[in-house]
């Protein structure tokens, strides 16, 4: 029975869709299915749905509706922000500041722009994954047109000193300030004015809304070049027939989040804290990644020495528990999480990382199930691990480190 319990702990990857959200989406697919550009009543009803959703999405970040541009997700919104500002401000400068722990939607877009002649500064983070606002200050030049630093990290949950960074950028005057708030929005208070942002990215499928919808907040007066051209949708910022059901669903999810944010934070925090203490105490050689206090209420990220992430995930999955890892093996890339490496973790610890992100569908029994299940899995895998064997024999572990690479064993 404990074995068939299903515990979803991957809310940072995506969330189930709230039943009320599904209900309203179904209505907009089966009944109010018009194209918002059509002038007949079905078109007008669809338009109304989209504009109401714009209000709802804006309200959860203290913005006004006409500052919201709907996109196909967080990734597209990040691209629109960065490419849009870069190409739109070519005449102003060519320098962008970001951090080493951004999502790939930011990092790979910046890398593409480097090929196009832009200069990008990737700021380091401390061992907790925190950016230092002083580093931002030092990196700003007369060429800087954009600073893009996330609100909170998706892997380790560290909440950045965003408002402080915002003030630093505003003092500079010229650079726009963009923030990827995909993980924060709906999980933690976000207010575009308090944060001093000019652009801000959010995504629906992280807040119990549908996949394939996101939004970019664009402060009044901020200019950018679109990346998708066509009809004059979204005030010419993003062409394409509006994903009406998706947008309406996102709006509903934002509204629910706004109405329940306080409870959600309290609920998640309690589960998170129980999970952290319940796992770190029975499992030795386990470490919490990310900031001890400045972290998202739903994020648990631990590194467990001598075991590899994917093998933990597959064993957890057998027991009905869905989690995530920063191991390269889980991503098809050859390197483990760039976030954990940027925080100074050695490769082995990065490979042994386990991210568990809680949500509204979890309860305390779920946590107890995980706490009862994971230590056994770790024990079993360690019995199989040559690194653990080395450890208990007191060997200096694996003589396999490629020369020249820093490789501390004793973390």
């Amino acid at each position, binding site marked *: 029975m404990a074995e068939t319990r299903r515990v979803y702990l991957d809310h940072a990857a995506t969330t189930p869709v709230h039943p009320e959200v599904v209900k309203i989406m179904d209505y907009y697919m089966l009944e109010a299915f018009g194209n918002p550009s059509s002038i007949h009543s079905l078109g007008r009803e669809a338009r109304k749905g989209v504009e109401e959703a714009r209000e709802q999405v804006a309200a959860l970040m203290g913005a006004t509706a006409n500052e919201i541009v709907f996109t196909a997700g967080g990734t597209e919104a990040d691209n629109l922000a960065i490419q849009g500002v870069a190409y739109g401000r070519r005449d102003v400068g060519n320098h962008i500041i970001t951090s080493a722990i951004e999502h790939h939607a930011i990092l790979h877009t910046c890398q593409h722009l480097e090929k196009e002649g832009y200069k990008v500064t990737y700021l380091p983070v401390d061992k907790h994954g925190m950016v230092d606002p002083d580093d931002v200050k030092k990196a700003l030049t007369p060429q800087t047109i954009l600073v893009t630093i996330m609100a909170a990290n998706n892997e380790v949950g560290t909440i950045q000193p965003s408002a402080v960074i915002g003030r630093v950028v505003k003092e500079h005057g010229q650079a726009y300030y963009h923030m990827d708030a995909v993980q924060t929005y709906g999980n933690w208070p976000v207010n575009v004015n308090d944060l001093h942002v000019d652009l801000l990215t959010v995504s629906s499928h992280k807040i119990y809304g549908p996949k394939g919808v996101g939004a970019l907040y664009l402060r009044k007066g901020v200019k950018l070049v679109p990346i998708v051209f066509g009809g004059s949708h979204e005030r010419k910022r993003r062409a394409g027939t509006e994903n009406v059901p998706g947008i309406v669903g996102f709006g509903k999810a934002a509204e629910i989040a706004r109405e329940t944010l306080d409870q959600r934070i309290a609920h998640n925090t309690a589960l998170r804290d129980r999970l952290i203490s319940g796992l770190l105490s029975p499992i030795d050689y386990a470490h919490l990644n990310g900031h001890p206090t400045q972290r998202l209420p739903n994020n648990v990220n631990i590194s467990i020495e001598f075991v*590899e992430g994917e*093998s933990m995930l597959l064993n957890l999955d057998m027991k009905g528990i869905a989690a995530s890892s920063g191991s390269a*093996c889980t991503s098809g890339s*050859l390197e483990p999480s760039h976030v954990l490496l940027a925080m100074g973790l050695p490769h082995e610890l990065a490979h042994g990382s386990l991210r568990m992100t809680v949500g509204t569908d979890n309860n305390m029994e779920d946590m107890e199930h995980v706490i009862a299940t994971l230590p056994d899995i770790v024990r079993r895998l360690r019995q*199989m691990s040559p690194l653990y064997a080395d450890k208990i024999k007191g060997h200096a572990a694996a003589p396999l480190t490629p020369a020249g690479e820093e490789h501390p064993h004793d973390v």
Partner: protein
Amino acid sequence: MYNEKVMEHFYNPKNVGELKDPDGIGRVGNPTCGDIMQIAIKVKGDRIADVKFQTFGCGAAIATSSMVTEMVKGKTLDEAQEISNRAVADALGGLPPNKMHCSNLAADALHEAIKDYRAKYGGTDRNAATQAQVQAAGETAASTAAASDKPMSGEGKDKH
């Protein structure tokens, strides 16, 4: 992602653990990729009498480790030497493409164990006999030579 056979070997791996007084030990892998495999063998005559593995790694790493130990038990060293990483993957009914280069190193670990054994115990006699067999087997010679050239870190495999 993984097929059933892979999952079966992953959840119930065969021949896990350490060997008491092994005749040869091979360890390959790379902490960057996150897979480290160690294979230990006991040799009787020129046959592998016992084999065990220890692996830090993903599902594919554990399953291929388990698979290769099953494949070589009782085989001659030269037969074992001929088993390639691809043959292990094939015996498992295939692996996801992105698992082919980093996690599919079990045969390399085995070859390292054989090399270790030969370095430690391979007297002139035995060695000569082996060489003779190998030459008789024609082109096998080349692959054996190539295999024993492999660096311990497994850098000879597909690519990092």
